[in-house]
């Protein structure tokens, strides 16, 4: 079985020529002031897990830069992309703040490999969290340079000057002034951010922390926003590619005759790649349906029910994630023990925009418009597929119609590149919804086994936690437990062949959804047995002040009155930690006693994410997490037989709809003096557990498998 191959892509390969150096960037652009900066760790293998060897050819000292142009406009060049999370707005806000310029005069140039320095990719919460501090530092540094230039120009000491809207002026005489634009004229100053210039303090903020509307909204409500499949080039052909019925299928016969009959259709056969091309996508679609191909499809017994036993069978030894105390002693002290197994099936990313790409190969150069969270990886992959230097490939990132971790592998980009080269014309590959489901890198099916116990006073005596194949993110508990062990068996992706029947990958807050579901369900099971209110039970085991605060705030805003579950109220609680952010979520559900059908009436979520750059944007991300999270909590579960995927469209793979919507309330804890943490993902991690716990509180049915479906509830209700 082919497994995760493209996610195992070796980043050390393919940097055929040296990536753009600082000097090269300075050559591309005219004059101005340039501040180079490093975002996150460089090289940023850290984002994808450890163990990737570094390679000296990469620029190791910067991966973003800032330019104040001779027109006084500020531009930030970064390989990050906007995928709906609103970074185009929040990153611009930070720059405008530190530089004392109007928000409107900041441009974000994102994901263009010819203009932006190399970057690993955009993954969920990473952008603001990692970008925030260095970007602000670079802004502060640029302001410092400008202030020095201004002082020289005005022949005044800097301490007699002030800056507003990109104009430096004498405090005592506002008319004695000079603008950034004037100062940058004819200059070329380049620096690496030293990090030594102090940042503004929260009480000085004029732009950070103020709600602002999305900068991309106008383009998106008028239909002008271009996504990859909206790019049309002269002479461009639309491709449809022959797909196997199963990931295990082997083709045994092929008949292209009928497809070739269609006027204007070009049929391409290149090894494993069989495609039809036509100036109209719908004609290409028709042509592909006329190809007769027979396949040998071995049947494997794996399906959405048997997968869990299989995973436990093939699981490697656990690797310790954390340990404290003495487990044996803890077991001795326990009066009641709880041994539970939690299951979570495969989930699709299902972004509304399927994978697509337009590639134009001309000679030994290629220009690419992909739907991709990883433009630089796409650059390398295209270069490799075409056998040309990476520097000859330019990736231009259009708007992305949702990623959620699913647009990191660039299979469609490589397909379009190969076809463009073979056809000698620009080619668009835009996947159908069926292809999107088939080639998704699914959130992995996973098992969590927890063995825990409480002493006669209702205190947790021990905690033995094993997660299989979800990954370790979010597996460590944050409760006061004297004896505990956490181990991860296998990771979410990059597993041995034979583990999963198809590719798996990161899915919004990878691993943490599964881990939080298991941990927080187990907490509730213990609380119920001890006859203690689940909020009180958690607080009894929490000394982390931040977690206490989000939980207590949630209880207060929700109007939580202590009661042991099941209280029949249908109230649930769950806590979580992700990307440095603390979350406490409460929900109210109603369960139909006959069918087990769940109605989620209310969800309240409290988040402590440190300094909030754009509160409006952060709130929207939380609402999005809650709404999307209802899907995996209540319904999403991929059905398959071996490598054959049965859910190929939205008729059978259900995602949240308007009628599912509970009343949603969000609270962000004010923490302006803390570093900004991730906001694009944390709220989603609590959704499985909060629903499962609320269902138990309503009807006493404890469902240990996601999604919590009516049928599973019914079974447990007896």
């Amino acid at each position, binding site marked *: 079985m082919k497994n995760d191959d493209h996610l195992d892509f070796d980043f050390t390969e393919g940097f055929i020529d040296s990536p753009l150096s600082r000097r090269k960037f300075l050559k591309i652009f005219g004059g101005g002031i340039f501040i180079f900066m490093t975002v996150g760790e460089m090289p940023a293998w850290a984002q994808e897990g450890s163990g990737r060897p570094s390679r000296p050819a990469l620029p190791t000292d910067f991966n973003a830069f800032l330019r104040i142009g001779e027109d006084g406009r500020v531009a930030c060049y970064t390989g990050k992309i906007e995928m709906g999370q609103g970074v185009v707005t929040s990153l611009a806000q930070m720059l405008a703040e530190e530089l004392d310029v109007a928000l409107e005069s900041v441009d974000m140039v994102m994901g263009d490999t010819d203009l932006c320095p190399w970057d690993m990719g955009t993954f969920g919460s990473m952008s603001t969290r990692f970008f925030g501090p260095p970007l602000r530092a670079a802004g502060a540094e640029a302001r410092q340079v400008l202030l020095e230039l201004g002082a020289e120009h005005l022949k005044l000491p800097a301490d007699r000057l002030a800056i507003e809207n990109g104009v430096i002026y004498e405090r005592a005489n506002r008319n004695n002034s000079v603008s950034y634009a004037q100062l940058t004229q004819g200059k070329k100053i380049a620096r690496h951010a030293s990090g030594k210039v102090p940042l503004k303090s929260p009480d000085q903020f004029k732009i950070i922390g103020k709600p602002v509307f999305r900068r991309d909204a106008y383009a*998106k409500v008028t239909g002008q926003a271009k996504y990859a499949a909206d790019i049309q080039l002269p002479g461009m052909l639309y491709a449809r590619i022959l797909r196997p019925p199963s990931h295990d299928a082997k083709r045994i016969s092929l008949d292209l005759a009928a497809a070739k009959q269609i006027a204007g259709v070009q049929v391409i056969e290149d090894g494993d790649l069989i495609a039809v091309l036509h100036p109209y996508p719908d004609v290409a679609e028709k042509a592909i349906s006329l190809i007769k191909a027979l396949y040998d499809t071995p049947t494997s017994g794996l399906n959405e029910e048997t997968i869990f036993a299989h995973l436990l069978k093939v699981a490697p030894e656990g690797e310790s994630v954390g340990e404290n105390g003495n487990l044996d002693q803890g077991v001795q002290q326990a009066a009641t023990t709880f041994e539970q197994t939690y299951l979570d099936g495969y989930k699709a990313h299902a972004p*509304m925009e399927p994978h697509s790409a337009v590639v134009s190969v001309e000679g030994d150069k290629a220009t690419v418009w992909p739907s991709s969270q990883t433009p630089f990886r796409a650059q390398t992959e295209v270069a490799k597929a075409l056998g040309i230097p990476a520097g000859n490939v330019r990736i231009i990132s259009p708007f992305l119609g949702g990623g959620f971790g699913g647009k990191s592998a660039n299979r469609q980009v490589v397909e379009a590149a190969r076809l463009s080269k073979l056809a000698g014309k620009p080619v668009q590959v835009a996947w159908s919804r069926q292809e999107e489901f088939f080639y998704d890198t699914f959130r992995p099916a996973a098992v969590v086994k927890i063995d825990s116990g409480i002493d006669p006073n209702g205190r947790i005596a021990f905690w033995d936690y094993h997660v299989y194949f979800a990954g370790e993110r979010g597996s460590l508990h944050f409760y006061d437990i004297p004896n505990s062990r956490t181990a991860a068996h296998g990771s979410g992706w990059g597993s041995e062949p034979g583990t999963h029947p198809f590719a798996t990958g990161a899915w919004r807050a990878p691993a943490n959804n599964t881990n939080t579901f298991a941990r927080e369900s187990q907490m509730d099971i213990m609380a119920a047995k001890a006859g203690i209110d689940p909020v009180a039970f958690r607080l009894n085991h929490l000394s982390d002040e931040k977690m206490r605060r989000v939980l207590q705030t949630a209880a207060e805003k929700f109007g939580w009155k202590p009661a042991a579950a099941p209280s029949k109220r249908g109230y649930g609680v769950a806590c979580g930690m992700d990307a440095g952010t603390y979350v406490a979520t409460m929900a109210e559900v109603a369960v139909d006693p006959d069918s087990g059908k769940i109605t989620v009436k209310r969800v309240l979520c409290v988040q402590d994410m440190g300094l909030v750059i754009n509160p409006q944007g952060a709130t*929207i991300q939380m609402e999005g997490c809650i709404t999307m999270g209802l899907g995996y909590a209540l319904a999403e579960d991929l059905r398959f037989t071996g490598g054959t995927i049965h859910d190929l469209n939205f008729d059978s793979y259900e995602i949240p709809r308007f009628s599912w919507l509970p009343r949603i309330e969000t609270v962000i804890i004010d923490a302006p003096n803390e570093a900004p943490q991730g906001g694009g993902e944390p709220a989603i991690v609590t959704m499985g557990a909060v629903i499962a716990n609320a269902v138990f509180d309503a009807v006493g049915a404890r469902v240990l498998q996601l999604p919590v479906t009516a049928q599973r509830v019914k079974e447990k209700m007896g």
Partner: protein
Amino acid sequence: MEELIQFTLNGKPVQLRQDSDRMLLWVLRTDLKLTGTKYGCGESLCGACTVLVDGEAVQSCQTTLKEVQNKSIVTIEGLAQNGELHPLQKAFMNNDALQCGYCTPGMILTAHALLAEHPNPTEQQIIDAMEDNLCRCGAHKRIIEAIRMAAKEMGGQKHEK
């Protein structure tokens, strides 16, 4: 079958000699270069391709050219009048009723048809009308708020379809 198809598109007459079984979605996007109408599922399951045909919200991925013969079609590109955004477009902006924005054209046009029918929609009427429009980013809450705001802005009056 190839035939002469005529319709009004965003207020302007269009004539095409085309296979009349082709789906409107692809003709709009490719032949007519209006890419604001999106593909999401191809089977009337997601609403991304919604356009207005004589004021009704219709899934263009399952609507043939034949079916729009002599009809009037409005796509997201045709909603603003003389550079002035439609109240729904403004309300979507003002309520941040979008994230990635891919579902947005379909959402706005479906809401447009709803408000033509029910100028003062109840919460339930909004949900019923929008139910088959999918949004993976989870902008639902704000979309409902935006539709309410637009209804108010438009004065709860019956408007032209």
